[in-house]
């Protein structure tokens, strides 16, 4: 609680900077956050801008663009189980299959069940099968008691100058999850280090788990650089292909092309990763933190 209060004070006290440095530092300005958010909502309409209650408005962002949200993202598998499935297929450098703990995940579910036993009895007592006539539409009711849903929020952190992710989970009944339950959907590598329980700074009375942004800039810088070199490689390949084609087609307008090729400047490569694609790269990173939450991160940003 204390740390969280301290953090919200820091968020409050740190002014927003407005100079763009994203490709060198991995950080973005509020303006770039809005730009990247606009692009995200355009490419993935499941993401939407949201305003904030009057008391929680931040004046350096437009009133109707305070935070990004996507709702009811399904999660069918807990992070533990997900990781163990992945591990089973992994081979080390010598071709040995690693066998570490493929069964560990199976216990996570059963522990919960016993704790909830008394609640289930309590609630079973209230079932009323005579409450209505048969509904023709509900005959084939599929039971997916393990399914969960997440509302994902992306907020701008002024202290770290990066986006920050907040998660609000629901069980298959649409009932809020406890923080402890939500932690089951965070990858083990991050669970004890960078994920904290927070009150959402943009909502009233909503407890969330949040991925702490202290390392985001560094990670984003690496990812952006990687995306840039991938783009550079792709470009070189294309250029090479073009070159080959040009050799074959002597009489097309190739002379211009050749000149352009020699011009492939640093500018060109940097513009391949634009700041408005920042959040799409960010979501790919978040996917590694929350492997079981199936938000749509599939699009290639480039």
């Amino acid at each position, binding site marked *: 609680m204390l740390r969280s209060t301290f953090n919200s004070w820091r968020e409050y006290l740190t002014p927003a900077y407005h100079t763009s440095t994203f490709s060198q530092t991995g950080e973005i300005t509020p303006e770039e956050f809005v730009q990247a958010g606009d692009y995200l909502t355009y490419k993935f309409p499941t993401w939407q801008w949201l305003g904030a209650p009057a008391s929680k408005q931040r004046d350096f962002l437009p009133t109707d663009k305070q935070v990004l949200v996507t709702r009811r993202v399904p999660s069918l598998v807990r992070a533990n189980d997900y990781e163990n499935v992945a591990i089973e297929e992994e081979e080390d450098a010598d071709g040995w299959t690693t066998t570490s703990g493929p069964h560990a995940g199976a216990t996570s579910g059963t522990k919960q069940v016993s704790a909830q036993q008394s609640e289930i009895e309590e609630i079973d007592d209230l079932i009323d099968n005579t409450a*209505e006539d048969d509904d023709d*539409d509900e005959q084939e009711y599929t039971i997916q008691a393990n399914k969960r849903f997440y509302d994902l929020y992306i907020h701008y952190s002024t202290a770290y100058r990066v986006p920050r992710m907040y998660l609000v989970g629901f069980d298959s009944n649409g009932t809020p999850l*406890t923080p402890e339950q939500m932690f089951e959907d965070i990858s083990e590598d991050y669970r004890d280090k960078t994920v904290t329980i927070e009150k959402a700074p943009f909502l009233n*009375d909503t407890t969330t788990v949040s991925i702490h942004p202290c390392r985001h800039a560094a990670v984003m810088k690496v990812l952006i650089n990687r995306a840039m070199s991938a783009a550079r490689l792709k470009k070189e390949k294309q250029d090479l292909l073009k070159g080959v084609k040009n050799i074959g087609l002597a009489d097309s307008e190739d002379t211009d092309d050749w000149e352009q090729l020699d011009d492939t400047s640093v500018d060109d490569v940097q513009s391949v990763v634009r700041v408005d694609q920042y959040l799409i790269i960010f979501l790919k990173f978040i996917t590694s933190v929350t492997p079981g939450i199936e938000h749509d991160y599939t699009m290639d940003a480039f």
Partner: protein
Amino acid sequence: MDLTFSPIQSFADASFFQKLSKLKLDSFKLDETAKKITGVVNIASTPQGENPAVTVEDSSFGDESCGSLYSQGAVLVIPGHITNFNTIEDFKRLDKAQFLKKAGSRLQELMENGDAIEDPSLLSSFEIICFADLKKFKFFYWFAFPSISSHWIVKSTSVIQEVSESVRDWVKSSDYAQRGHFIIKDGTAQALEQLISLPESTTSIHVGFVDSCLIPNKPSKHLQNFLSLLSLRGFKRVTVDIYRISGSSFTLELEHEDNGGSSKITGWERTNQGKLGPKLADLSALIDPVKLAEQSV
């Protein structure tokens, strides 16, 4: 082919229960009468393959603020009631079948007296019954989406290639009461009120419905009351455009089939076990100050 619907699922934010606790302590106290609330239906951000959803949150108890934080045209705001019982015994003792029947006949009255034509969002109204155990931060609650059945046969289905400008504007900027249900006349969207001025002998009509799920050929259960209204008003053939903002929209040609029987009233939400029973939100870990302090160390 019979027309079938996707069942509606409720989502209750923790902030909804927080606000309910406050109101129970400060203003409702021992009052067990139904209180007006509102719910939010997402129409722009609907996940693939998921049932339509109604969300309640803290702003559900406000007058106008519900929905104001969303982007233009992203949601529908629908009316509802919450009936909060003082004891779990009261909650248990309530005759659930009777409660639903009453809600259904109230709805039928609104269809007959024209109120639901002036304010079609009433067709999507919902009920919550609740018992709040404030000491333990436990909430027993049960949603009902009262629904009056009418029997329709799908004559044909066709994809809408491009949603007209007029309809897009309607969904974006008409007020919440009108947004989800409207008439389509000469290719433009118009208020449902126009039904009243049609000659009495009219038996076919072209309407628009804003859907909140992307399940193929199974529009949200919310459509059912709209069709029942039309059948009650004597329409036999209905062309309904199902608008899906984040998916492909389509047109259904429907024909009413009079099967003699009286219409059924359904709508209690089932649990994740498929049973007719309430849900339990145990928020002790989310809002109990003692537990919160433990977790944040």
